[in-house]
């Protein structure tokens, strides 16, 4: 899956993903521990802090913020997909492979997303249009806003907004198709 994914750099993202992953994980734990009930985790704040911390390290493998966000987004995508797979494997024979968002985040009518199906759809989208796939990664997996994504990708916010609309509609439809074929 990762080979097909366009990386912002020639070096494979997986090379420095562990560094980013460890930092994100550490920070997430730190945040969660002092989190107050009802207050949700600020993804952007987390990614930003991870970036600032890792930037101090002279051996940092990425060139700039943009590149870092690309890695962070891909890291998060991989983390989530791996977890979903692990769950799937743990419940061998069971049909439940969804990670219900509401399970982890207290929001009343949160929809559940089949992460594995989303991941596959996103890979197909990257084939058709790498830019759109990247927008989804940044927005959904790294938690960047439209403006931040635009900055990270060096394109206009309007382009991001349009891309986001289309990609989201397309992905939703793909997931519905997948859901139907499954049922």
């Amino acid at each position, binding site marked *: 899956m990762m080979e097909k994914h366009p990386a912002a750099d020639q070096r494979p993202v997986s090379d420095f993903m562990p560094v980013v992953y*460890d930092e*994100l*994980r550490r920070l*997430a*734990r730190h*945040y*969660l521990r002092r989190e107050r009930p009802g207050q*949700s*985790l600020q*993804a*952007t704040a*987390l*990614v930003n802090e991870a970036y600032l911390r890792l930037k101090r390290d002279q051996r940092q493998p990425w060139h700039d913020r943009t590149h870092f966000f690309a890695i962070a987004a891909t890291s*998060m*995508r991989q*983390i*989530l997909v*791996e*977890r979903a797979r*692990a*769950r799937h*494997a*743990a419940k061998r024979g069971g049909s439940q492979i969804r*990670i219900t*968002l509401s399970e*982890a*985040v207290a*929001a009343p009518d*949160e*929809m559940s*997303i089949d*992460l594995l199906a989303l991941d596959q759809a996103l890979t197909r989208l990257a084939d*058709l*249009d790498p830019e759109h796939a990247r927008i*989804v990664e940044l*927005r*959904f*997996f*790294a*938690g960047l806003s439209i403006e931040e994504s635009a900055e990270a990708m060096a394109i206009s916010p309007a382009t991001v907004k*349009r891309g986001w*609309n*289309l990609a*989201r*509609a*397309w*992905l*939703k*439809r793909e997931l*519905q198709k997948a859901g139907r074929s499954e049922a």
Partner: protein
Amino acid sequence: MKRERWQQLKSVFNRALEMDPARRALFLDQACAGDDMLREEVEALLASHDEADGFLEQPAFEVAAKLIDHDSGDLLPGSRLGPYSVSKKLGEGGMGVVYLAVDTRLGRPVAIKALAPQHTSDVEHRERLRREARVAATLSHPSIATVYALEEHDGNLYIICEYVRGQTLHEELAAGPLPPLRLLDTAIEVGRALAAAHEQGIVHRDLKPENVIRTPEGALKILDFGLARFQAIRPGDSLMPTRLTKAGMFLGTPAYASPEQLLGLEVDFRTDIFSFGVMLYELASGIHPFAASDSVATIARILEAEPADLAHIGPIVPPGLDAIVRRCLRKSPDQRFGSARELVAELERIKHEFAEVPTARKQDKVITASPARATMLHPLWWWQFHQAWIGFMYYAMLYPMWQVKVWTPGYRGPLFFFLSLGAVGVAANLRLYLWFASGFYPDELAELRHRVAPWIRWADVLFISLLLIGSIAIIGSHEVIATLLIGIAIASLGAFLLIEPTTARAAFDNNKTGPSPSRP
């Protein structure tokens, strides 16, 4: 879908979306003229867009953060893990967090050990753990806590084992060494369990007092048999798990590890025999045979030093035990017992001999553990006796000194007496202080001796000089007393130069490699 098709779709979709929904139909008629497929596609996407409100809006990162936080496998009381209902957290062990839970199918309590997260990431490592857990689960012995299952839940690994209540031997050791019969019974029971496991080809690899529990009913249970590889690796060693365990290296507590384990060599059941020896030594004496200031020094001692004779340091040691422990603690595995079975047979033999000795004689027999020392009292006792005796003798000497003062005219009399009083005060009090400390603060004795030694030495010199000066001063008038004082001066000189150093050497220097009383 082809890329060109996607471009088409994208352009139509984007324009349609920017439009007033009422005009969309008209626009699509024009834009997709003749291409029904495209129109259908765009319409579906537009519909999808309209209902996609909220879809993917909440960043997955927030969910991911929660999920990765659960990587540690934390279980909350009341939560379920398969058929197990978690009751409470028991504590954190070498492997990770340990929980008490109830197996709802059988209604029995179980202990759940959540393995440290690093075990869950490496597929190969996981597979190895799975194999080991399977092997460990085949062990069935009354003195071994049974491994019921290895469960995977949300990508985390959990070992489900028999829940054992009671006190570990480590906790028991806090109250001091075990009495001889209890010691032998404990050793035999643990040894039998070791033998049974070894005969099935399973090695513990991390045997230590913390891993042996005595239940309230008095039975012993060895924990974590065959699970040494499940030990958590300390943070910062993130690259180590696979490398270390592949090399067969050691992850547990170094204090009970065998030399071959510490050197990263191939280990077999004889590593358990060594660890057993360390444990036995400690249970018998209350002192770790290789205790040192830090773990690196402990490792060095395990690899090189011979432990001090048990009979020298242990308060009460059954005869023959020292030889058994020594054989367990041989650096070379080949020189240890050939099997745990053989070791148990030896323990049973000395227990039998020990039990045959009439109770009244037991104490003698016990103290005179090694034949060479049969007629000797404990050397520390001599030293203590000497210190106390000298202390009292000094005070007794104040009387003749007073007499000398009375017979000496002018200021010299009182000066002489006050100097004597000072010498006696320092020399006697410091000796009595050491005597007292040897009984109550044995740990600090060495340092105290070192600190007060020069004071005692100079007070002794001053006192002997005063004795000689005093006797010369009165030799004209009181010959007999003067001669007596000279005699005492010479005797004291002998005592300070010969007897005292001898008792001290016997009490303190008889084991140069002897352990410090502190635990590692």
